[in-house]
């Protein structure tokens, strides 16, 4: 079947009739893939350029518009053997790429300056026979390099410090900026006075170390964001719009507007909220409400984005959210929950708030102390500035980001993508875990539960035939196929089933009526509740396959693991009690509540919060979105509804629930390391500050102390990459 595609929202137009599009490509894994995709595309007439970025798994294509269109480009990639998904780079992502580039430039300038100033400084330190004239020359040269370099490379810190001061708080950048500016200012004054010591090297080296930390932190966040955006592109749904001419146009769901008429075929997800104009079907709303029982719908019924259409084709008119619908309810609750959310004070800011006043008071006391002891004003001020330089929170500023970078890249490898910068800190504080049932504790798709007694070759034939069907249950059955090649000539009759001729007789897979299979005693395949069935008939033999939402394979172990860490585990579900009870029983959970509306979930969470609990909410349904926002920290599986996934602080991949346990364990380990690092910084200061107050700090000691303490906290942070003890099995 050919149908027109409208991909205009992804295509940007260049000069001379060329068009540009970015695609997220699945399945790229080796050097050969780059050549196959780029080479294959470039052979196509009309392609101007194709370049695959292996790091981000994105393909940038330029082509002449009069020779090709976007759909043909995607088709060409698919012919080469890869699945490509059009991709609209988010504005936030381009902004961040620019920010990263700027940080890298600052880092390069600071690195250049640090190396050259250090070259001059080492000569001054080791040249005991150096004449004062040469020393002054070297100091002035250092100033010439350090001042412009610090003025450029220090901007990230100065700007952030200014913002903080304007908003009347203190962050770590305030003492950093102060330390750098004072060190440079004092050094210029001292150099002009032909003094022996100048701190240009300390100031620039400090900037270099801090920029390293900041760049790594930024790069890690950018990497996870890019991965999340790719996954969103991979998951992006397409809609089929019915034009007035009767033509069907395939377009991205994001381009659908209210008033459009959409055609929803069996096996498709409903791409937007709307009202059914014609058609009857059963839909699975488990992603919306958590309800596993299918709902029968006819013309006039309201349907929600994310529902899965099971049996018949539907025509849906897209409507904007109106008062009283579920979506409206969810959005109102979500808004309230986000507004009520108190921002947690991050560990680094807490440390800065304690640290900055302490340091500045110490410096002031140093001036007063030395003046009282009879020193000259100049000596007293120089000593005080040395105190500020040596306490400049280099180690402190690296202590937390370094751990964060290492821990989030470890989580990334185990399939957890962090959306929020402070998710690790908040995860570490959790004492209660609340799971949604449908799609979170259970797998998002139904799995084959049992079959009436059936011969293995019957199962294999049915499973292979299922490969040709779009029906969601058929997709579950197709998992069982050993030979993953669909039968040639298989015909799908939408809403009824598939048929094909095998060895001279017709085989049918689909509804019981379609296959001519009589209803049977349901007890032969176990409990009827929550089961969906399809039938198979071939050459006079018949079989019935039953499907059920299965619990994730490692859910029991993960729940036990969470409890072993002293966490209280509960289940809040929108599904019927009869569906929740067996799941809770299988996992050994006593605390569960069923048939909760979104507002009900929030009420439970608020009650627990009032008791001082810190809650991790794990959910996937649209109905969970407000609860996710209300909880202290939240996670959702990648299969979650779009709004919900956007709310979650972390998203996890795969069929297993283990990432939830690993996230909590890694976060706790990371939090321990952060505290350790903060203590290391404190110990460093308790040793260095008395030396500085006593007036014994030379630029050499300052340089050694700073690089030593920074390396120590960074090395300690690397321990966050180890698997936490006893994680998983």
């Amino acid at each position, binding site marked *: 079947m050919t149908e027109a595609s409208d991909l205009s929202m992804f295509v940007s137009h260049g000069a001379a009739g060329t068009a540009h599009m970015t695609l997220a490509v699945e399945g790229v894994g080796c050097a050969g893939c780059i*050549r196959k995709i780029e080479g294959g595309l470039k052979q196509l007439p009309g392609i101007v350029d194709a370049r695959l*970025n292996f790091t981000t798994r994105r393909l940038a294509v330029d082509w002449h518009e009069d020779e090709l269109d976007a759909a043909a480009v995607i088709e060409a990639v698919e012919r080469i053997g890869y699945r490509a998904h059009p991709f609209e780079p988010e504005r936030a992502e381009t902004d961040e790429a620019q920010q990263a580039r700027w940080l890298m430039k600052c880092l390069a300038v600071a690195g250049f300056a640090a190396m050259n100033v250090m070259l001059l400084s080492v000569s001054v330190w080791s040249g005991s026979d150096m004449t004062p004239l040469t020393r002054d020359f070297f100091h002035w040269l250092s100033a010439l390099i350090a001042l412009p370099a610090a003025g450029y490379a220090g901007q990230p810190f100065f700007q952030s410090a200014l913002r903080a001061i304007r908003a009347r708080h203190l962050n770590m950048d305030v003492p950093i900026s102060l330390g750098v500016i004072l060190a440079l200012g004092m050094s210029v004054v001292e150099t002009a006075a032909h003094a022996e010591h100048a701190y240009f090297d300390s100031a620039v080296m400090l900037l270099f170390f801090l920029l390293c930390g900041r760049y790594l932190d930024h790069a890690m966040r950018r990497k996870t964001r890019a991965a999340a955006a790719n996954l969103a592109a991979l998951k992006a749904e397409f809609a089929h719009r019915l034009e007035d001419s009767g033509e069907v146009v395939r377009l991205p769901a994001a381009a659908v507007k209210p008033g459009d008429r959409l055609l929803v075929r069996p096996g498709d997800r409903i791409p937007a909220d709307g009202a059914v104009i014609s058609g009857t079907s059963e839909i699975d709303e488990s992603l919306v409400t958590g309800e596993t029982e299918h709902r029968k719908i006819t013309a006039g019924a309201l349907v929600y984005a994310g529902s899965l259409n099971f049996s018949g084709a539907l025509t849906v008119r897209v409507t904007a959210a109106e008062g009283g619908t579920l979506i409206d309810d969810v959005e109102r609750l979500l808004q309230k929950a986000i507004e009520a959310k108190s921002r947690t004070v991050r560990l680094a800011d807490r440390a800065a708030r304690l640290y900055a006043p302490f340091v500045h008071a110490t410096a002031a006391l140093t001036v007063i102390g030395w003046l009282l002891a009879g020193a000259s004003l100049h000596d007293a001020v120089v000593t005080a500035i040395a105190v500020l330089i040596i306490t400049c929170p280099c180690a402190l500023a690296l202590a937390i980001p370094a751990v964060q970078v290492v821990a989030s890249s470890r989580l990334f490898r185990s399939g957890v993508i962090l959306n929020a910068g402070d998710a690790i800190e908040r995860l570490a504080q959790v004492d209660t875990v609340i799971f949604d049932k449908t799609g979170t504790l259970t797998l998002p798709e139904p799995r084959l539960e049992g079959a009436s007694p059936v011969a293995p070759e019957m199962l294999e034939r049915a499973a292979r035939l299922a490969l040709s069907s779009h029906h969601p249950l058929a997709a579950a059955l197709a998992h069982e196929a050993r030979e993953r090649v669909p039968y040639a000539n298989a015909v799908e009759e939408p809403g009824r089933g598939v048929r094909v001729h095998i060895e001279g007789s017709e085989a049918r897979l689909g509804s019981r009526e379609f296959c001519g299979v009589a209803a049977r005693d349901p007890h032969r395949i176990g409990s009827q509740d929550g089961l969906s069935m399809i039938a198979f008939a071939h050459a006079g033999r018949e079989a019935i396959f039953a499907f059920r939402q299965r619990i994730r394979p490692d859910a029991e172990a993960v729940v036990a693991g969470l409890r072993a860490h002293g966490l209280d585990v509960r289940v809040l579900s929108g599904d019927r009690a009869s569906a929740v009870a067996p799941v809770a029983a299988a996992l050994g959970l006593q605390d569960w509540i069923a048939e909760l509306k979104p507002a009900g979930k929030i009420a439970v969470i608020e009650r627990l919060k009032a008791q001082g609990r810190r809650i991790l909410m794990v959910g996937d349904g649209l109905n969970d979105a407000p609860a996710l926002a209300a909880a202290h920290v939240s996670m959702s599986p990648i299969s979650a509804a779009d709004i919900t996934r956007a709310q979650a602080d972390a998203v996890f991949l795969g069929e297993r629930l283990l990432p939830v346990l690993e996230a909590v364990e890694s976060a706790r380990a990371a939090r321990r390391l952060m505290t350790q690092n903060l203590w290391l910084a404190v110990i460093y200061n308790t040793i260095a500050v008395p030396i500085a107050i006593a007036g014994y700090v030379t630029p050499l000691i300052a340089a050694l102390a700073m690089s030593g303490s920074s390396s120590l906290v960074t090395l300690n942070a690397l321990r966050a990459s180890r698997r936490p003890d006893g994680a998983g099995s």
Partner: protein
Amino acid sequence: MNVLVYLVPVALGLGLAGLAAFLWSLRSGQYDDLEGAALRILPDDDLEG
């Protein structure tokens, strides 16, 4: 010590040249795909041709 008067600027000039080269390579996008760059040298396109 007079030698320093021209040796130091020469050293600085070389350092600046390195910095300029790095900034140029950054601007021309050479660090946008580090993993890909490592793999692109592997296929022997030139030998088959």
